[in-house]
């Protein structure tokens, strides 16, 4: 059934990292570590490569440089103490994991019916803002891996203006800890909507320039079209989600398929592209920026101005949740993220396991795409798959 035979690495023993007995090592082969100390790597991970000249013969992904044992730590913490931990599971996009923790425990404790209307709107708002800022970052980073400094500088600055909005809303630039059980921590400040609107206008105004620099650039198209194609049949076999899947032309999105929060009431398109190469994935991201801006504007318009933003909560230090097991999912900028959450009636989490799209993207897909790839494309491929190591090893 597998399209990929695992043994495409003939005569090579993965455990001892040495050639098997009876096989010879190709003298032209050079071993090269791509990371962890490398400007082209995404985060702190590494790819061990066997090279022949410029092209890669095979490679292995190594992760674990960021392992902190979050899941073990959360088994030792009270429910409320888990919030500072979950948001560090994915550094760039902390709100998704916060929402997953809150919603899964609310579901198991029956609190989910008490979450007020306004809190749901605020949660939708911050999750969409978070998706927007990551997508901006990745769009610039994509062309940054190909040696252009101008576009990343612009997108990072636009993202920084969004971070200012986050700071105003939550008090933190990167880690927000905004979503809490039963709602959110804080109401909108006065005039927040106007300031966020101004930032969105600015982003929208700059987008045509970014298009000219990135998607319409002849060199970028030459570098990315037909490069690092993810075969369509891997979609089921590997369980691909998110922009990687949408770049194959499949309109799949957790926000539409498993509606959560206020997304069913919002009007948005699912951006797809054809080709499944780096260009298609970049195009999907570019279109999602416009969609996210569109969604945030709708939220700001439709959101009720009155009402509570958090439900009445039990004492968080003595809160216990009945035994149960569930799986909650949400759409992050990379694809489907989910929590398998198990409770056992005590005041601590029994077991939690994060399902992240990078898990398949950075290990299973990347390793299978490496043979035959040019080393010049490796960094661009990793950014286009949006590999996020803290999410793999937690």
């Amino acid at each position, binding site marked *: 059934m597998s399209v990929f035979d695992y043994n495409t690495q003939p005569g090579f023993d993965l455990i001892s990292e040495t050639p098997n007995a009876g096989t010879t090592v190709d003298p032209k082969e050079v071993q090269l570590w791509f990371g962890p100390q490398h400007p082209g790597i995404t985060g702190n991970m590494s790819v061990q490569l066997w090279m022949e000249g410029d092209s890669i013969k095979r490679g292995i992904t190594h992760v674990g440089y960021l392992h902190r044992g979050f899941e073990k730590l959360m088994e030792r913490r009270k429910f409320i103490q888990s919030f500072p931990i979950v948001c560090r599971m994915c550094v760039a996009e902390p709100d998704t994991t916060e929402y997953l923790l809150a919603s899964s425990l609310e579901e198991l404790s029956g609190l989910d019916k008490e979450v007020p209307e306004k809190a749901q709107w605020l949660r939708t708002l911050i999750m969409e803002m978070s998706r927007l800022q990551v997508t901006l970052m990745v769009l610039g980073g994509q062309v940054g891996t*190909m040696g252009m400094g101008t576009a990343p500088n612009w997108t990072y600055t636009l993202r920084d203006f969004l971070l200012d909005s986050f700071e105003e809303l939550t008090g933190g630039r990167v880690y927000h800890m905004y979503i809490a059980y039963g709602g959110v921590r804080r109401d909108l400040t006065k005039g927040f909507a106007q300031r966020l609107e101004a930032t969105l206008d600015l982003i929208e105004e700059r987008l045509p320039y970014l298009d000219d620099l990135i998607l319409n650039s002849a060199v970028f198209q030459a570098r990315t079209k037909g490069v690092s194609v993810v075969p369509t049949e891997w979609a089921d076999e590997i369980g691909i989600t998110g922009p990687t899947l949408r770049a194959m032309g499949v309109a799949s999105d957790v926000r539409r398929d498993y509606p959560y929060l206020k997304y069913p009431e919002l009007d948005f398109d699912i951006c797809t592209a054809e080709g499944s190469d780096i260009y298609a994935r970049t195009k999907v991201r570019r279109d999602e920026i416009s969609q996210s801006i569109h969604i945030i504007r709708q939220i700001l318009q439709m959101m009720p101005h009155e009402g509570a933003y958090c439900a009445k909560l039990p004492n968080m230090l003595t809160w216990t949740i009945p035994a149960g097991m569930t799986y909650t999912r949400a759409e992050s900028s990379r694809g489907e993220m989910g929590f398998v959450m198990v409770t056992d009636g005590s005041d601590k989490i029994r077991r939690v396991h994060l399902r992240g799209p990078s898990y398949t993207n950075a290990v299973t897909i990347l390793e299978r795409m490496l043979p035959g790839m040019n080393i010049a494309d490796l960094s661009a491929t990793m950014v286009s798959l949006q590999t996020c190591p803290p999410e793999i090893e937690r």
Partner: protein
Amino acid sequence: MELLPKIGWTALSLFVGINYGFVINGIIRKVMARIQGRFGPPLWQPYIDMGKLLFQRNSIMHGYMHWLGPVFRSVGGIGVFVLVPIVIGDPRLAGFSEMGDLLLVMYFMFFGSLGMALGAGEGGHPHSPIGVSRGLSQMTAFEVPFILSIIALATAAGSFDINAIVAGQQGGVLQWNFFSNPFATAAAFIALLGMNMYAPFNIVGAPTEIPVGPATEYQNTYFSLMMIGRSALAIGKMVLFMNLFLGGAHSVLEALVKVIVIYFWSVFVGAVFPRFRTEQSVRFFLRWPTVIGVAGVLFAQLVRS
């Protein structure tokens, strides 16, 4: 002119040239920063970097060949610089241009990179040979349109002597090769993009692919020597292009202005493009620029006959 004063004047011009290279480097950093929306480093940052590199300690050495790499590189740069006349008719600023012609200049341009490749290979890091092979294949590729364009100019002037080519362009702006042979000019200026190693042709030391490329194992003092060599080579190349296409210079000021104008051609192109892959870069140079270069040669023959 006597040999001794000549050496003195050439050394002086070399010193000024290298410093001008540093200044231009500072301006480029500032201009690039402004394009990217940043404030940018101070203009004298290259000088501070240079001083810092000299005051850091080297901790490793991969044999004397490794150490000689930057030396070869600087020799190549200095060789180019001293063989190109700067101001027309001024024997003090003509360097040793009457002792060598364009072919020798081109030899020195190649020599620096080859020497660097020899030294870099000694470092033993896999990035070095990959960077060297990338750099040499791109260099061979952009040499083709460049040589074609030079053949065109030499056909028009009837000589490979730079002074003769400059002399043939006097008597008005329209006499410049820039206007009299647009095909050769186009081919050479596209080749210049490759020579200057700004995007989309900065494939040698591509930081996100093979960080620093050939210079991966080079350190402080080696780096400062390479900075000097690169500065001399860059200014030498710009002065050469000024002589070949922009009719030379009648005063030092004119030379300074023309050099910076030619330099910024590749800087501005580099600001808005990502980089090519190696084989794309090679294919790029061997396609249209080569055709334009051939057209330039034919055009020169036509005009002459």
